[in-house]
């Protein structure tokens, strides 16, 4: 059985190209693909950063062509041109071990745009569920995806790949937690109404703050933004008053002069009776006088400071990728061991059938010569069955072991030669009923 993977991601394809091949409902195209004779099983993953299809096949050459046509023709929407050169360059193809490794890396978020981001695992799980629901996922891909999920869990637990935040808004929350014990009783003030403020609002809303205020030069824009995030809107004229009631202040507003000065904050601190205030200034030019950081109980971070922390955290994640890759390799080898053991299933079945045929023939021959009653015949039958099972136990266990693929092939050849099994006559069985388990036993 061969495993193939075809797809494109944020590294190989532009957003424009990815948009053309992204699908919301993977069910219908997947059902169509799985019905194809060349494809045994398939899973389709479609996110904003990647479109990938994983399939198993017994005819890899035909399946490759089918997968390419599936992506280029059946997934394309709008004005897609078949044979698009940009598409050919964007598509990557993996098979066997490299396909397994790629899928594990994707699930672990090692291959993500933001390394360590948690969403991808959920998206891979959704893709797997959709494939199961439409009957496109069989025993091999099920095992592969279960392996991918457990690998992702291991990477998350055993490395620090997702420990530190890398987005500016997340870094702000992380820093706020170093100042405040809990954010549930704290309030935030966001000054501005641009994209950065909107992103920060989204993040802060999820942190369960007691109150969020949005202040802007144009109150209407503040109101528009505030209404989307259950926040209150204010004009900049209210700043002195609302500043005193805010524990976290994030500013990103256009203007040549600072809107928050040392004098402002000194007055605010008196009103706050020494309670700390965390100020994040993302404005360029800066919205907050840098001297504010010299005040006690005020912690000011500007865009450079935030970027420095985010970059350092990204670097730490990259360092953790090395450890994550080692886990991926280990899990890839375990899966390949299982797959190799699976390829021995026809040989195992043939060997059993051959042994059973010999046993029955010899038993019949012997029983016809001897005058045995029914219980004696049953005893002899059990005895011969036991002898055959015991003789086959070691070679069959060896064939079932999840070891190196090459090693399994050597054992298979040896078994065929030693037991005189017909190379061409081995039944090409379905794998479902003879799958080896995780510990190597079927």
């Amino acid at each position, binding site marked *: 059985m061969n495993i193939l993977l075809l797809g494109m991601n944020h590294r190989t394809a532009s957003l424009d190209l990815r948009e053309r091949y992204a699908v919301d409902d993977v069910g219908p195209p997947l059902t169509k693909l799985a019905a194809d004779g060349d494809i045994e099983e398939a899973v389709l993953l479609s996110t904003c950063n990647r479109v990938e299809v994983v399939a198993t096949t017994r005819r890899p050459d035909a399946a490759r062509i089918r997968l390419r046509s599936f992506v280029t023709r059946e997934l394309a929407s709008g004005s897609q041109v078949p044979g698009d050169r940009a598409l050919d360059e964007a598509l990557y193809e993996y098979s066997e071990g490299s396909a397994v490794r790629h899928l594990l890396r994707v699930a672990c978020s090692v291959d993500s745009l933001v390394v360590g981001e948690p969403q991808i695992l959920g998206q891979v799980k959704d893709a797997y569920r959709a494939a199961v629901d439409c009957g496109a996922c069989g025993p091999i891909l099920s095992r592969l995806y279960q392996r991918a999920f457990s690998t992702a869990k291991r990477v998350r637990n055993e490395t620090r790949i997702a420990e*530190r935040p890398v987005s500016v808004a997340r870094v702000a929350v992380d*820093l706020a*937690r*170093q*100042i*405040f*014990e809990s954010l549930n009783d704290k309030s935030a003030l966001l000054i501005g109404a641009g994209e950065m403020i909107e992103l920060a609002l989204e993040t802060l809303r999820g942190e369960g703050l007691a109150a969020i205020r949005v202040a802007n030069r144009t109150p209407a824009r503040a109101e528009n933004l505030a209404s989307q995030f259950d926040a209150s809107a204010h004009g900049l004229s209210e700043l002195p008053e609302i500043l005193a009631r805010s524990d976290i202040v994030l500013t990103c507003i256009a203007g040549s002069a600072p809107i928050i000065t040392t004098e402002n904050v000194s007055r605010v601190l008196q009103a706050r*009776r*020494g309670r*700390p205030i965390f100020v994040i200034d993302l404005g360029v030019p800066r919205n907050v006088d840098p001297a504010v*950081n010299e005040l*006690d*109980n005020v*912690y000011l*971070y500007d865009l450079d*400071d935030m970027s*420095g*922390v985010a970059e*350092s*955290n990204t670097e730490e994640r990259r360092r953790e990728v090395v450890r994550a890759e080692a886990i991926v390799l280990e899990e890839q080898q375990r899966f390949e061991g299982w797959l190799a053991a699976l390829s021995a299933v026809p040989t195992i079945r043939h060997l059993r059938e051959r042994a059973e045929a010999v046993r029955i023939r010899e038993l019949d021959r012997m029983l016809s010569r001897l005058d045995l009653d029914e219980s004696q015949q049953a005893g002899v039958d059990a005895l011969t069955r036991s002898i055959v099972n015991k003789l086959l136990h070691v070679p069959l266990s060896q064939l079932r072991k999840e070891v190196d693929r090459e090693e399994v092939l050597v054992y298979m050849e040896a078994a065929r030669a030693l037991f005189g099994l017909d190379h061409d006559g081995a039944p090409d069985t379905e794998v479902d009923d003879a799958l080896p388990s995780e510990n190597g036993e079927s």
Partner: protein
Amino acid sequence: MVFEFYQLAAAIYLVAAVAAALGFTLPSERLSRAAVLGLSLGVVVHAMAFWQLHEGESTPPLTDLAYVVPFVVWMLTVFYLLLMIRVRLIGLAVVVAPLAFIGTFVEFLGAPAVESGAQPASPIWSHIHVLLASAGLALLAVAGAAGALYVARHRTIKSKRPSAIRLPLPSLEALDRVNALSLVVGFLLLSLGVATGVLWTQAVDGRLWPATAHANATLVAWLVLAVLVAVRFGAGQGARQSALSSMAGFTLMVLAVIGAGMLA
């Protein structure tokens, strides 16, 4: 048997201190949690040592430095573990665990000789006094430890260096809350400790104040706490200043206790 329990408690505290230090530097949450677990176990073994001490034939020398210091660190550890129920303070183990080890180790430097005939006439007052005063001193130590970490955390955030920011210290707000709570409760307990000490002295020899080195050291500690509470809550001292004052107050108390021990 008492000595063996002290040895075991000191060994457990040492392991907890190493785990806390590693948890802090690596940083590793698991190791820090293991340190807290070690401290919990150490507190139990340490309590058994005290129990054995009191089960002895004679009343222990309650004012002996080598007896009081392990008791104070035991209470400090107990307070720390109690505070952890409400406030996230795992990072504080990096200060508490070494203090617990050093405080217990004092036992080996001058193990209290349980002498008969030199004991108080009113053991109930003496026990209450020692318990309250030790609790007050332990809370001053907690306030000092929280103050030290507050200053460290404040500096790391102000420095803006990513490597410093990553240090697994409790939040500023949590440390400040621990500092304030320790000062108030510590002052109340030490005040009661001084009052019961006066009652004890009066019951023994009719005097109000014994003017011994250890009594004077306790009075110094009480004055330190009184000043810390007054400036914090009376004069509206800020969190960082209070942290610095608590560190200074704790240092002064340690010097007073050591001085009392040398003069005794």
